[in-house]
């Protein structure tokens, strides 16, 4: 079933996309359409939705997950997977909070967190690169392990950091929340790296066919180590952003829920689980869709049991629409 993802499905009603008029062959049209439908629906039901405050809220709410999703997009494009990113984020928030509470200067805490997170990513990278274990398996194991580490670092309790990172968590640059500025910058950089740098193109090559990449002289092992380290670094950045936003770290911070949200955003954004294909734009759209859906469900006062139902349904519809469109390629 991996192969079909690449090639057009055999005897498929082949290339729906091919039959579309040119102007409709926008990438991610399916996802954009679903977002548009949700937006129009929400706007017609409540005037609270299309307000600047609300849209800034949504953007701030998705800032953290978009960092993780962005890193995952790059990594998955190279055929990798890091299921532990949000757990690294969890550990990162705990370490940062513990250090700040313990009196370390904020910049030191931030650097230590980023350094540790990068190191944890590198450990994943070493395990993935130098053993034959599938990356999903390695990082599922380290995710479990790191969730435990987070508890140990926190000692089970929430740790507050007061206002020490409030410039980041609550600040704004020209009216745009600082978190959103950081997230946008990171996504843009990842997008540029993926499209325009040797490293990014090598990532596509590794994801597309690792053996060929290796035999062609791409430094596959080194690139993979770097990719996992970058995933770790971005998880660390997400940790700093998250702890700045929450002004605290607690046992419920980071971990599986955040991870699955990031994975969901990446995959409905069209990045292939098998590697070799992915775009940051798709991921950003996926993140935005999930953020908007959560927001709209709140604004429209949908009962919480239906939140899960609605979120699942929208995910499904978005994925199907996006793939109908993509099937040509």
């Amino acid at each position, binding site marked *: 079933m991996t*192969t079909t993802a*690449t*090639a057009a499905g*055999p*005897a498929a009603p*082949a290339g729906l996309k091919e039959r579309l008029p040119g102007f409709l062959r926008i990438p991610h049209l399916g996802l954009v359409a679903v977002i548009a439908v949700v937006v129009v629906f929400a706007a017609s039901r409540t005037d609270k939705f299309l307000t600047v405050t609300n849209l800034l809220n949504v953007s701030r709410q998705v800032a953290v997950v978009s960092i993780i999703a962005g890193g995952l997009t790059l990594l998955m494009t190279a055929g990798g997977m890091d299921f532990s990113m949000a757990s690294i984020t969890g550990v990162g928030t705990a370490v940062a909070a513990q250090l700040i509470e313990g009196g370390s200067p904020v910049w030191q805490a931030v650097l230590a967190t980023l350094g540790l997170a990068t190191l944890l990513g590198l450990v994943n990278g070493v395990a993935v690169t130098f053993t034959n274990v599938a990356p999903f398996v390695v990082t599922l194991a380290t995710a479990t392990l790191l969730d435990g580490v987070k508890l140990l670092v926190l000692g089970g309790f929430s740790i507050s950091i007061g206002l020490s990172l409030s410039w980041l968590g609550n600040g704004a640059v020209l009216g745009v929340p600082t978190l959103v500025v950081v997230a946008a910058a990171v996504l843009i950089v990842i997008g540029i790296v993926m499209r*325009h*740098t*040797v*490293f990014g*193109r*090598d990532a*596509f*090559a590794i*994801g*597309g*066919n690792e*053996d*060929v*990449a*290796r*035999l*062609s*002289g*791409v*430094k596959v092992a080194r690139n993979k180590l770097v990719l996992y380290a970058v995933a770790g670094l971005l998880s660390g950045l997400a940790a700093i952003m998250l702890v700045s936003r929450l002004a605290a770290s607690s046992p419920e911070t980071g971990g599986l829920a955040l991870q699955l949200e990031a994975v969901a955003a990446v995959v409905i954004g069209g990045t292939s689980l098998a590697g*070799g*294909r992915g775009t940051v734009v798709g991921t950003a759209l996926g993140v935005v869709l999930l953020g908007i859906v959560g927001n709209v469900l709140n604004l429209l006062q949908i009962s919480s049991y239906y939140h899960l139902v609605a979120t699942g349904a929208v995910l499904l519809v978005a994925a199907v629409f996006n793939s109908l469109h993509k099937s040509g*390629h």
Partner: protein
Amino acid sequence: MTAPLDNAVEAPLPVAPPVIRVRGVVKRFGGAAALKGVSVDFRPGEIHALMGMNGAGKSTLVQLLAGVHAPDAGTIEVGGAAHDHLTPRQARRLGIATVPQRRELVLGLTVAENVMLGALPGRGGFVDRRAMRATARDALRQLGIDLDVDRTVADLTVPEQTMVEVAREVNRGGDALILDEPTACLGAEDAEQIRALVRRLSAAGKAVIYISHHIDEVLGLADRLTVLRDGEVVAGAAAGEMDERSLVRAMVGREVVSVRPPRRAPRPEVGLALTGLRDGRFIEHLDVEVRRGEIVAVLGPAGDAQSRLFDLVSGRRRPGGGAFAVDGRAVPFGRVGRSLGAGLRCVTGDRRTLGLVPELSVDENVMLAHDRLHRRRLHFPAALARRAAPLREAYKVRALQRNPAVGRLSGGNQQKVLLAKWLGTDPAACFLEEPTNGVDVAAMAEIHALIDALADRGVAVLLASSSAEEVMRLAASVLAVRGGRAVAGFDVDAVTREELIAAVLGGALREPQPRPALQGDPT
């Protein structure tokens, strides 16, 4: 540095020193040895052909040089330094470029990116797209290929992919270029482009290691021949010292003859008919009728039209228009089950993607279609082995282990499994795309005989091939296809090889001959 004990391959002084010296390499897979102490030298400016039957160890030797595998014993000397093994990057650094037997490209990337893979030109980490595209275009032009370098490789035909791969390796420079069956799935014109390039490179001083099962190609190209049998070097000589007979005898251990047998007249019933078939730019209009017991060939460049034909008749894909019937009964397009149910068996030219399940065993692959067609419910390896054994024997499938995963077989043996899988299912009609792709001379003769036997049993055989020789050996009538159109029809007994090639390449165009079994309609 030198191997004083091994004088056999040592040449007198004036000859330039070897670029690569292989000394006593042994390579085992799961206990059995694919190479049993091979020593050979590759010299600059020399085209050195590696010959041998399927499974002889040619690709394994190449893989040791490319750093894919590490030898279990022996050394590889490159540029004077001995190595007990090479990594892929080392091999590249030492100037060894390799076009492996399996097409190895990153399907999602563009032609330019694939040509420059692993060495993307960059400025400050950013890809210099202009330089990348220009270099790629130049590299392709050297091969006489005019290919849009921005196309995604997944959209290319197999020959186009081959060219991209050769272009990539040639562009790498270095002192040695290895080509493992580069022309196996190329038509005459593309193959000639490759050979011309090889000659140029060799004249420029490169050591070229060339593997091919086409004896005449090798004899016309190589300066030196080394023959492997069962992992051992059994002969090595300058090209002039061997002719076809001695070469084949060295490879196979006996003589091989493959001639067209006298054949009964086909039966009157039409076994397979394609009417007004068209599909995009690949097939513009095709009418073919194959009678029971007849072999009809569609001759054309490998790839585009042929694999499209496979897609259409196998049910993998629906055409733009046309109709198709087996034994006089219409078969709907796009329905694999209906094609099979009608008794049609289609052998793909792309065994890796569409032919075999690499992880499954040889036995399972051989019986994959057969058992499904016979609606078997249960599976017992021992019983399966018993059922598969006659077919493995008939098609001479050779492996180091008894029943390994089919992906571990040599390329030619995989091809034999593919044929056994389909031709052992008692077909009413067959579509064969490049059926002897990559098989050795002996196996080719045997496969030809098996196809003859199919026709004798009354099977309608439609052969899609890029080889004029094969077409003339097997078919009674030939339809030459060019640019998606049938341009001429021939009776094999009334045409020469040169005329056939000319028709396909667009030389002298002959009017299609009016023959009942075969109509090429240029409009």
